[in-house]
């Protein structure tokens, strides 16, 4: 048995395709680049609770306006109420939707306002200027509703719209540099345009409802339900066209299509696809980013896909206490880039709204992924809390290795050592599922924290991750490797090794060997 390190994620393929660094099952571990250690995910932290009223208190949407002068104004929708949220405890009611909705928005920095759409298309397109939420001036006779919006080529593009008539296949493009001017009568190319800078509409060729849009470098990519992926070509109203981009598949759900920096990912039936690979290689196996986690994805019909640019992670909020996490830097490694986040906290990562935005609190500029629950609570990922999820809930980390076979295990059983760095006192439970005799035995390994007389700073002390001191730094023996042995009872043709840590503390397991 080779030394076990932890740079790979979950791999549910046939066991012969699973590397020792991967696991066949697991959750709540990180697999960041250039790190082979077993470390827990950071906890999430409740940042605020919106005013609670009778009726729905679901957090349904977020919109963040960042003005040209870099001032943040953040909207949080709780139930049908839209609040200006200061990132702390202050929620100022700005608007109430006339019907259920899920607000989303895009920044129009040129005018220092955000264009706000409703993913459920029950409410009209609105404008958020940092002071008030108003109905967006559109120049149209009928109220305008839209599911998706994006800023592209100096226009605001609205997708899956309704203006008098529901036209889910239709795209409205604002006039050039004027998001308050739309036209539902002039069609791109065939319409009458004086300069080409006018507003226009255009439809997707298959006339199916649009269910996702994303920018892929300079290309606007559009998905249709049970359809194909399209892209926009052209430069003005006279020549804009929607043409097929990839005919093999399209996204399902409502918010599964997302840009992830140098790529676009989307969910289709049982698969998370990578558009970049699809673009270069066609619909081949390698465009299936989820081949490692097919059993988890299977049956998923919708999710909210969020890209955390700073941490190079893509979150797929698929509900049922499963937050699927794609570590982008790992995609090219050949190892599984997937982890799962689960929580024992009641929020269960079940949400109607998630967003990657700058911390709304004044003076804080770090970006986080935020999500809400059904009780008006707003959480952010990657907290510096030292007390687990929501500062009150243990985080259980789990990894189940592939089947590790060796003659030694069959004849002598298995024993070895765990190499780790002292971060905090944590119990590591090692379960060994021995093949052949179907027995499971456990070794409980207490991993030690800093020495008693060490008065330097460490996680859990006065300093913390992101502060002057950080993870595993500061105390006298912080960089020194230490070990503990294990030798469970049992023999068999091989083992599955199950590692479980249930703690609010952090830890740093470097590797596990089968050498005494």
């Amino acid at each position, binding site marked *: 048995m080779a030394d076990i390190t932890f740079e790979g994620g979950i791999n549910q393929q046939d066991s012969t395709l699973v590397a020792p660094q991967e696991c066949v099952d697991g959750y709540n571990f990180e697999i960041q680049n250039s790190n082979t250690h077993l470390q827990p995910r950071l906890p999430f932290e409740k940042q605020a609770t919106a005013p609670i009223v009778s009726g729905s208190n679901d957090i349904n949407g977020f919109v963040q306006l960042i003005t040209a002068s870099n001032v943040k104004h953040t909207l949080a929708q709780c139930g049908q109420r839209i609040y200006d949220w200061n990132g702390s405890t202050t929620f100022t009611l700005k608007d109430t939707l006339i019907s259920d909705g899920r607000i989303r928005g895009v920044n129009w920095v040129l005018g220092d306002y955000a264009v706000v759409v409703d993913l459920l298309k029950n409410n009209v397109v609105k404008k958020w200027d940092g002071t008030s939420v108003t109905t967006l001036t559109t120049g149209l006779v009928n109220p305008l509703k839209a599911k998706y919006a994006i800023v592209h080529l100096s226009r605001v593009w609205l997708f899956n719209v309704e203006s008098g008539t529901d036209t889910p296949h239709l795209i409205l493009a604002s006039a050039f540099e004027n998001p308050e001017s739309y036209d539902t009568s002039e069609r791109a190319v065939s319409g009458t345009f004086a300069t080409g800078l006018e507003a226009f509409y255009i439809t997707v060729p298959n006339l199916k409802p649009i269910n996702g849009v994303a920018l892929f470098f300079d290309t606007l990519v559009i998905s249709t339900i049970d359809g194909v992926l399209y892209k926009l070509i052209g430069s003005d109203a006279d020549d804009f066209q929607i043409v097929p981009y990839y005919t093999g598949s399209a996204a399902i759900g409502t918010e599964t299509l997302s840009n992830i920096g140098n790529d676009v990912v989307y969910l289709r039936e049982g698969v998370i696809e990578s558009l970049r690979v699809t673009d270069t290689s066609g619909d081949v196996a390698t465009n299936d980013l989820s081949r490692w986690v097919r059993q988890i994805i299977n049956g998923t019909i919708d999710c909210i896909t969020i890209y955390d640019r700073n941490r190079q992670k893509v979150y797929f909020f698929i509900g049922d206490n499963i937050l699927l996490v794609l570590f982008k830097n790992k995609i090219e490694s050949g190892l599984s880039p997937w982890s799962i986040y689960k929580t024992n906290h009641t929020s269960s990562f079940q949400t109607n709204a998630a967003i990657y935005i700058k911390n709304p609190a004044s003076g804080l500029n770090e970006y986080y992924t935020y999500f809400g629950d059904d009780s008006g609570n707003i959480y952010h990922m990657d907290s510096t809390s030292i007390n687990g999820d929501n500062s009150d809930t243990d985080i259980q980390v789990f990894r189940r290795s592939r089947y590790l076979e060796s003659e030694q295990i069959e004849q002598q*059983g298995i024993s070895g*050592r765990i190499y780790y760095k002292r971060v905090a006192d944590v119990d590591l439970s090692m379960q060994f599922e021995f093949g052949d005799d179907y027995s499971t035995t456990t070794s409980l390994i207490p991993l030690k924290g800093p020495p008693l007389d060490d008065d330097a700073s460490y996680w859990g002390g006065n300093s913390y991750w992101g502060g002057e001191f950080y993870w595993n730094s500061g105390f006298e023996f912080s960089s020194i490797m230490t070990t503990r042995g294990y030798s469970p009872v*049992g023999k068999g043709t091989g083992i599955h090794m199950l590692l479980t840590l249930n703690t609010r503390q952090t830890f740093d397991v470097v590797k596990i060997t089968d050498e005494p």
Partner: protein
Amino acid sequence: MAIILQTEGPTLNFLGSVNRILRINNIIKGDDDEIINFSENQHAAKIELAQIVIQDEINGLLADRIIPYEKTTGSLTTSDGVRTYTLASDFVRFFGKKPYFYYSEDNQQVFEYEGGEDALRLSIPNYKDQTGNPINWYPDLTTTKKIGLYQTPNTEHANRVYTYDYEKNVSLLVEEDIMPFHSENEAQIFAAMAARRFRYMEENTDIVQLDNDPIWNGNRSTLFNLMRFSNKKTRWGVKHG
């Protein structure tokens, strides 16, 4: 340098010997703490193996009469009308060629009935019913180690405490059992010897080779030398003439 004189046997017990074996074989090192009981699961397999090698080595030494069973004293208290009595749980056999029970108040020795119960029942058919002052004992051949008294104590001879010398079982069973040696040195070198056996068993090496292992044999010789009641002759250099 302070010299500590050891007045009684070793302090090393079964648990300590297991720890010593695990440490000698690099099972306990780094951040590992010494085990505090045999039910710990961190080193469960090695703990079991270490117990086995200690017991194997002890059994070997016992069989070779290198170490004797420990002599100790037990007692029984008579009861009115009770003929048979259970001996100590760690009883192996009586000490000495002519074992007896001793009632100190009367300075009375109770010797074995020659020929045992079989002879007794032929000579005195109603031996079970005769009561009075016990004058003989005999082995009571049941599944537990018991003796019978002849005569069966009556009221007058009840509540008497008889002591007896016997050889005690030195098998190691629980963590607190003290190693059956006279000194710490003996117990320590024994652990080193057992550690060598541990390695053979741990590595699945052919255990037959242990007899030819110089380290195991060296430790065994050292143990024997330490256990001698008289000093071994020391010799420096080559003897001439």
